[in-house]
């Protein structure tokens, strides 16, 4: 691996034709100027206005549907008995899953010293934050009157002397998601501080200089600061790694702790975590490919990055497919008639199309990633990641709706049909995500500038200082 760019490794990389993590010919100055210029320029690409505009309109739709919800109640949604949670929890788990790649890329790949993470970690972390924000919306609004339900969610002293139930997985969720959101924000902001200082020193606009200056906290790149900074960053990565794995495990407990056929499975925690990383990497690719084209970032987000991410997507996709196989196996091997009926109903019942579309999207299409030609073709890669995004949404739909709509007693069976408000809220959160993401790439460096500098061979002191 050409991680540290020692001469022999560079030669190895060339011999095996591994694309570099950064195109040759850059210096500390050019890296800084190129990434900072995206933010500090007066020029904004027209595509940016188009996409951000669409995102903004969709966000307005979100506000409209939430207003309608808060005035009317959740009867505007298709939720019923027995399908009580439906779109809220589908979208909640989907968004939380997408949020996982950001911390995974930042923390776990940092601990494994994978230098290719550097080009993508910043906007993957931003993606995490915005996805978690979209996810957190659902548990809050699904109560219909969040201002009355807060005492069940948060442990705070209230006049009724009531406290949350700490044996409930839904409370575990509240703590897991809010901790995840907070730690992701800390991680992202800590990574930004030196780059904010760079922007402060580069900005010519007075307002921009002041704003970046305030948030840079007076960072001056002192060796003593860097020393503690690196320690803190590494410790944060070490803390985030078990955290990111715990969050989706806790989300899976929402299901696995219940006794419902189709939910009550011990494979859920690892299967959910793999699915989250799968969906997350698909979303990073969905974002990275157009952003790279829009801002000509081919020097920094090279084919190597796309190739690596496609491989991670393939591996996690295979784990997810293993999960599907195990669900069917458990149903058969348990010799439990309710489990067996659940899987039969999934495959051949009224929602059969969702199950087979899921197998198509998550099981079959990503197998294209075995072929190097497809992994390096951005158009195919982009389409595959979109398909995976849809597939992971379908997975949550299948787990939730097909398990709930027919449980133990046929007398309590019913069908679930989402309403237009369900869709308006869902597409609204996608709009919110797009809007936040596009505002982010316009005002903050989407690639970590200081970490990119360390990728240059000139940044290595050891060989020459002692040589």
């Amino acid at each position, binding site marked *: 691996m050409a991680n540290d760019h020692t001469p022999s490794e560079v030669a190895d990389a060339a011999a095996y034709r591994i694309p570099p993590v950064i195109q040759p010919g850059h210096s500390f100055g050019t890296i800084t100027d190129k990434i900072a210029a995206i933010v500090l320029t007066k020029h904004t690409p027209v595509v940016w206005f188009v996409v951000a505009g669409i995102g903004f309109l969709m966000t307005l739709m979100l506000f409209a549907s939430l207003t309608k919800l808060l005035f009317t109640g959740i009867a505007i949604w298709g939720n019923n008995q027995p399908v009580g949670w439906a779109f809220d929890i589908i979208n909640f788990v989907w968004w939380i899953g997408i949020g996982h790649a950001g911390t995974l890329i930042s923390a776990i790949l940092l601990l494994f010293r994978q230098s290719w993470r550097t080009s993508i970690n910043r906007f993957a972390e931003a993606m995490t934050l915005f996805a978690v924000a979209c996810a957190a919306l659902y548990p809050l609004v699904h109560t219909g009157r969040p201002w009355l339900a807060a005492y069940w969610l948060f442990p705070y002293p209230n006049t009724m002397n009531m406290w949350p139930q700490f044996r409930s997985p839904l409370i575990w969720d509240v703590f897991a998601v809010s901790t995840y959101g907070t730690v992701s924000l800390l991680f992202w902001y800590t990574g930004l501080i030196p780059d904010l200082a760079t922007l402060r020193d580069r900005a010519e606009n007075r307002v921009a200089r002041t704003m970046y200056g305030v948030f840079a906290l007076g960072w001056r790149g002192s*060796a003593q600061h860097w020393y503690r900074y690196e320690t803190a960053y590494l410790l944060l990565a070490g*803390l985030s790694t078990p955290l990111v794995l715990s969050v989706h495990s806790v989300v899976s407990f929402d299901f696995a702790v219940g006794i419902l056929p189709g939910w009550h499975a011990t494979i859920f925690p690892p299967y959910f975590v793999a699915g989250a990383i799968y969906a997350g990497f698909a979303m990073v690719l969905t974002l990275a490919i157009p952003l790279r084209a829009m801002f000509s970032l081919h020097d920094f987000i090279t084919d190597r990055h796309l190739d690596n991410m496609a491989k991670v997507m393939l591996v996690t996709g295979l784990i997810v497919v293993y999960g599907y196989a195990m669900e069917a196996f458990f149903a058969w091997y348990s010799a439990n008639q309710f489990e067996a009926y659940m899987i039969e109903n999934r495959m051949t019942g009224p929602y059969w199309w969702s199950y087979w579309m899921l197998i198509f999207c998550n099981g079959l299409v990503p197998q294209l990633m075995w072929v190097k030609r497809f992994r390096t073709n951005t158009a195919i890669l982009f389409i595959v990641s979109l398909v995976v995004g849809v597939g992971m949404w379908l997975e949550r739909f299948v787990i939730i709706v097909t398990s709930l709509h027919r449980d133990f007693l046929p007398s309590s069976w019913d069908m679930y049909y989402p309403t237009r408000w369900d869709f308006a809220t869902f597409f609204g959160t996608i709009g919110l995500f797009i809007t936040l993401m596009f505002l982010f790439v316009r005002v903050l460096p989407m690639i970590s500038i200081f970490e990119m500098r360390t990728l240059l061979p000139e940044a290595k002191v050891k060989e020459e200082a002692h040589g």
Partner: protein
Amino acid sequence: MAETSRVPPIYGLLAEFETPQALVTAATKVRDAGYRRIDAFSPFPIEELADAIGFRDRRLPMFVLVGGLAGMVAGLGLEYWVSAVAYPLNIGGRPHASWPSFIPVAFETTILCAAFAAVFGMLALNGLPMPYHPVFNAPRFSAATRDRFFLVVEATDPKFDRMQTRKLFDDLHAREVTELAH
């Protein structure tokens, strides 16, 4: 002494270097020359630099450990107090203090407090936020966040002498030496 007292006091002398190697070499030599109140500035973390200026601080990991333990105790304490003292609920005959189901929340509070300790501990030990610092007075210092490397010897260093320190920097092939106003 009578002569130097007429010159306005300065914060220190700032030398500019073009490569990380030159900075590390210079920092090592300045420290070898007996200077102790020195600091270096670079646009990215340089592993060898803290050693070169003789800087060592092991407090942060301890902060994080204490933060994590405090978070764990607080989380478990909250859960115990709520579930067994303040608002006990008998659900399916489970014990009030059912510690296995308390683990997820206690784990999250552990991580949360440890992460707060890491970030705010780092900022506090670094003395940030600090909007004003004398090094910002150097006109070329803004390059420290782009591609230049700086070394400062503070005037409070017992060995500090405007002439001799400047000469030392010149011997180390500093690109430019600036006197930092307070």
